[in-house]
Structure formats: structure tokens, C-alpha cells
């Protein structure tokens, strides 16, 4: 496996302060390697989007980051902890190193400015030396990169279809050739055909440009096809993490298993659709022990009192799971 580009260490994110604080992300460890697609899946409310906004420090008030580190490894030079950057440093870091494609294809573009303005202003902010014609030429290239004709530069967002807008956003995300692109439900608002088109285009672009993707979605079926590795989140924690094929072939955590049985298989033998009974946990009143145990069909004795740690199961060092069915090696667990 190649070297890491983004390392999240024991990251915790709260909504609110003091006694009224609700912890939405709990001591998450996650590593994104250079050039890979890491899928992050979970039900709504599992904390996956909060994690993405937390690690980029874009979470609006009352969100606060209550602990942890987010280490970014530049191509050359020592790693940077994003959480210790000053606002000016953070501004320079953003988009140049990690860019984001948000879930709201409709609302991500400023409705009162032309596409060209919005493409150009990010280039101007980060590369002030570039001349105006050069910036416009770059903007034109970016549109062509995502398959939109350059005469669309003068369009306003409301004149574009949803799919086009999301492609503009992807083009914009690549404007400064970042090492990491975070995608938060980038295709959820689109129809299935458009979803396919954009995803295959994305795969092709990654092949060409070599950026790493943190792909966040509630749609695990999408990740199985599209990503190299998959992490599953539940109740603010990562509960399982494995290469995509292994996770799909043999899920270790009962929750992952439930997710996999919530959609029909695209290829291979038919599986029974069972879904997961119950509803996601209330962040204000998390159950003791494993957060999933009230809904777990295979809950054991320690599940309702002791928290399982994320670690490799005994037989496979290539993946990790937090479940008492597969207790981790005490040595590996933190």
C-alpha cells in the first residue's frame, strides 16, 4: 500500500459546548493513502458528513472540534496538522491541497455569479501571479476536463442542469490540482444515469491526475464498485474498515452485513434483502457498550457494557473491525 496522504487521528467533533454538547464524531482514526478512493458509508446521522466538515474545519457553529489530529502529508516536506493552522494558513491550504465536492448540486454554486467568475476567483485567490487571460484559459480547460463546452463559462448556475452543475463543481475541485478531493454525497441529488456518467468520469480523471478521494455516501452499493477501500461509520465511530472486495465478500460487523443486505446485488448470486431493524442511535443518549447492540441480531454478553475497539481480527491484518464477535488483538488496540 502506498504512503498516507491524510491521516485522521482520534478526531472528535461536538455540537455545542459544555453540558449541552452532543458528540457526533468519536475518536475516529482513518487513513487515506495517496491516489486511492476511500469510501465512507453509514446511515444518515452516523457522523460521516460531520467527519468531513470537521476535518476540513468547515463545520458551522455550534460545531466544535473537541480533540484529535488531522495530518496532511504534502508531496514534499513534513506533515501538517490541519487543526493547528491559523485562519490565514488554513485559507492557503484549502482547495490547494484538499478540495471538496458537496452534496447539494443545486446550492453549491453562487446563484448571482457566472460560472467563469466562480472558477476564476479560486485560481486568483491561490495563484495571484497568474494573468487574467491565463486564469480564463485555465477555467476553460477545467470545463473541458469535465466534458462541458467552454462557452458555458458565461452561464449562470440556474441555466445549467443539475448534472452539469455538479460537473462544474468537480472541475472546480480540480482547479488547483489538489492531492485530496473529499466528496460528500456528490451524486445523491442526481438521477441514476447521470450518477453513472459522473462516477465513471471521476474514475477516469483520478486515473489521469492521481488524486486521492474520500467518498462519503449512504449508498454502500456505489462504494463497492467505485472505491478501493471502504470504512463503515455508526454512531460517530468507524466500526469496520476493509478493502472493498473483501468487505463485500465477507462483512465482519453485523451492521455492515445489514447495510449490504439493504440493496440488491448488482452482480453475482442473489442475496436476501433484509435491511436493519430499528433506527440509528440518538446522539444525546448513546447506548453503553457497542452503540449498535440494541439493533444487533448477534449481540453477545459484553456488547451492552464494554466498547469494542477497532482493530484487525485475528486472522486478517489487512482489515479492521470493532466488534466483540471478532475481538481485536490487545496489542494492536489502542
Amino acid at each position, binding site marked *: 500500500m502506498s504512503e498516507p496522504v491524510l491521516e485522521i487521528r482520534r478526531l472528535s467533533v461536538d455540537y455545542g459546548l459544555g453540558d449541552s454538547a452532543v458528540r457526533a464524531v468519536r475518536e475516529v482514526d482513518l487513513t487515506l493513502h495517496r491516489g486511492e478512493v476511500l469510501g465512507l458509508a453509514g446511515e444518515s446521522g452516523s457522523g460521516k458528513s460531520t467527519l468531513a*466538515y470537521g476535518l*476540513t474545519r*468547515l463545520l*458551522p457553529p455550534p460545531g466544535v472540534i473537541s480533540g484529535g489530529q488531522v495530518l496532511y502529508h504534502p508531496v514534499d516536506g513534513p506533515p501538517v496538522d490541519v487543526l493547528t493552522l491559523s*485562519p490565514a494558513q*488554513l*485559507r*492557503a*491550504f*484549502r*482547495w*490547494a491541497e484538499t*478540495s*471538496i465536492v*458537496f452534496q*447539494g448540486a443545486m*446550492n*453549491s*454554486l*453562487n*446563484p*448571482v*455569479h*457566472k460560472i467563469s467568475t466562480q472558477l476564476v*476567483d*479560486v485560481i486568483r*485567490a*491561490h495563484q495571484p501571479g497568474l494573468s487574467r487571460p491565463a486564469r480564463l484559459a485555465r477555467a476553460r480547460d477545467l470545463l473541458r476536463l469535465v466534458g462541458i463546452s467552454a462557452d458555458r463559462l458565461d452561464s*449562470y448556475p*440556474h*441555466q445549467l442542469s443539475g448534472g452539469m452543475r455538479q460537473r462544474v*463543481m468537480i472541475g*472546480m475541485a480540480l482547479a488547483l490540482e489538489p492531492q485530496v478531493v473529499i466528496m460528500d454525497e456528490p451524486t445523491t441529488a442526481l438521477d441514476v444515469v447521470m450518477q453513472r456518467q459522473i462516477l465513471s468520469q471521476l474514475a477516469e480523471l483520478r486515473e489521469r491526475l492521481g488524486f486521492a478521494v474520500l467518498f462519503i455516501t449512504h449508498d454502500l452499493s456505489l462504494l463497492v464498485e467505485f472505491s478501493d477501500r471502504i470504512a463503515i461509520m455508526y454512531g460517530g465511530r468507524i466500526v469496520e474498515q476493509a478493502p472493498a472486495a473483501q468487505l463485500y465478500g465477507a462483512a465482519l460487523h453485523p451492521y455492515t452485513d445489514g447495510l449490504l443486505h439493504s440493496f440488491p446485488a448488482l452482480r453475482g448470486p442473489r442475496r436476501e434483502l433484509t435491511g436493519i431493524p430499528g433506527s440509528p442511535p440518538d446522539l444525546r443518549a448513546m447506548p453503553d457498550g457497542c452503540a449498535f447492540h440494541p439493533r444487533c441480531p448477534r449481540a453477545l454478553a459484553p456488547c451492552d457494557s464494554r466498547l469494542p475497539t477497532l482493530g484487525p481480527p485475528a486472522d486478517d491484518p489487512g482489515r479492521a473491525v470493532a466488534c466483540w464477535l471478532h475481538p481485536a488483538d490487545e496489542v494492536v488496540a489502542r
Partner: protein
Amino acid sequence: MTFLLRRLAFYLFTAWAALTINFFIPRMIPGDPVKSLVSRFQGQLSTDAIHSLYVLFGLDSDDSLWDQYVDYWRQLAHGDLGLSFTAFPSPVSEVIGDALPWTLILVGVTTAVSFVLGTGLGVLAGWRRGSWVDGLLPVTTFLSSVPYFWLGLVAIAVLAGPGSFFPSSGGYEPGLVPALDSIFLGSAVQHSLLPAATILISSMSGWILSMRNMMVTVAAEDYITVAHAKGLPERRVAMSYAARNALLPNVAGFALSLGLIVGGTLLVEIVFSYPGLGFLLFRAVSAKDYPLMQGIFLVITLSVLVANLLADVVYLFLDPRTRKEG
């Protein structure tokens, strides 16, 4: 263009409605105001003038209501608003023509300045929550809850008076003859400072508050998060992304509340005896000068409609979505 045409049609409709209301109001007056006037100015009224007054008041009751209505429009088309009782025998249009520029300048300038200043402060208050501007909000709320005219009274009591720089009444030094020379203009500006400040102070808080609330609402939009994520300079995020979008509903609100604002500012003129439409309306009401009252209402309404149309044009330039509407 369709947007503007639709608005234009609406304003024409509103103008028609206002004029029709204007037609019916005097028909509610009990008694015969024209007869009392005719007897007051025995022999000085031409038959034409008397007829025109009867048309305005709907007392030529031989005609059907419809004929009266047609007659009323015919008169308006000639710019004939009747004769003023108080400034007899000047026609109403002339009396109003003298007062209109004063109001247009005083109310027009202060309303525009108040909107711009208030919106600017609202941007600050909404963008940097908890800054000093937020502390200003209770004060401005209090000031906007004070009637305009009362604030004017206090301003006169505290700031004006014998020997003060601020004159307490009038639009210019009594001895001067209105002309476009520096002495007269200087005097006019000096006389307008206190009324303008009064209007400004009491009308600004509404804009601060609504702009602040819009900024707060817009700050949660996705494109603001994107702008932050892009690492744009804070100024650009605040102005070009947040304020630029928050401005749209504020401009729309400005157009809608123009009628309210203008009504309030007219009262300031009364307190300062400022020679504009508000003071004229006050005098007309005191003297029961119905033709003058009606004429003033007409002119105020039409001015507000024109101002509304201007605000719509501004909105058209601000919002690309209205520009290219199919």
C-alpha cells in the same frame, strides 16, 4: 424583460386602483363642501371651476356614477386636480408642484442613504455575530419604535432654538427668494439637516435588522461553505458571496415597504414645518381642503409607484435569475 413588463402592468393596475379609490373617497363626505366654498368666494369662481369641483366631488348627481367616473378621468388626463381651497384660486397642481421638489429631495435622499447605511451595518452585524454592531441593535430597535415626528420634536428641543446652528422650522431662511444660487442652496441644506437626521435615525434600524437576519440565513447556504472551502479571502466571501445574495430580499423588501416609509417621513415635515408634501397635507387636512388632500395622495402614490419600478430595475440587475426568465 418579461419581468419588467409584468411589473409595469401591475403598477399600472395599482395606479388605476389608487385613482379609483381617490374617486370614491370624496363621495363619502357628508354635506356639500363645494356649496360652502362657492358661498365663501362669492362671485370669484368661474362656472368652469365650479363645474370641475362638482365633478371631483361627485355632486353633479344628475349624471350616473359611470359618467362621473369618465368625467373624473378626463379631468385627470388634462392634469386638472381642481382648485385648492386654502391657496384659492391656485390650482392644486400648482400648489403641489411647489412642494414636490422639497419632499423628493429630502425623503428621496434620506431613504436611499438610510437603506445603504442600514444594509451596510446589517452586513457587519450578520457576518460577525457578537460584534459591536450587535450591541447597537437594542438601541436602534428603541429608536425605530419612536414615532418619527416625536423624534423630530426632541431634536428641535435639544438641538434647535435661538442662536443654534440648526433652524427649527422652514425649508430656507425666510427672507430668501428660492433660486439656484449658493446662498439659497446653503440655507436649504442647513434647514434640511435636522429633518434628514431624524428620518435617518428612525428608519435605519429596520434595514440593519433585516439585513442582519438575511446574512445569518444566507451564511448557512451551501455556496458560502463552498466559498470558505475554496480558501477565498474572508472579505470576498462576506461581500461577493454572502452580502451579495442577502441583498436580494432586502431590495425586494425595500420596494414593498416604500409606501410605509414615505408615509412616516412625511410626518417629519410637519414637525419641522418643512415646505414639502407632508406639511402641505397637514395644512390641507386642518383646513379641510379636500381637492388638495386628494391631489397630494395621488402624487404620493404615483411617486411611490415610480420608486417601486426603479427598485425593480435595480433588482433586475442584481438577480440574474429574473433577467433570463422565459
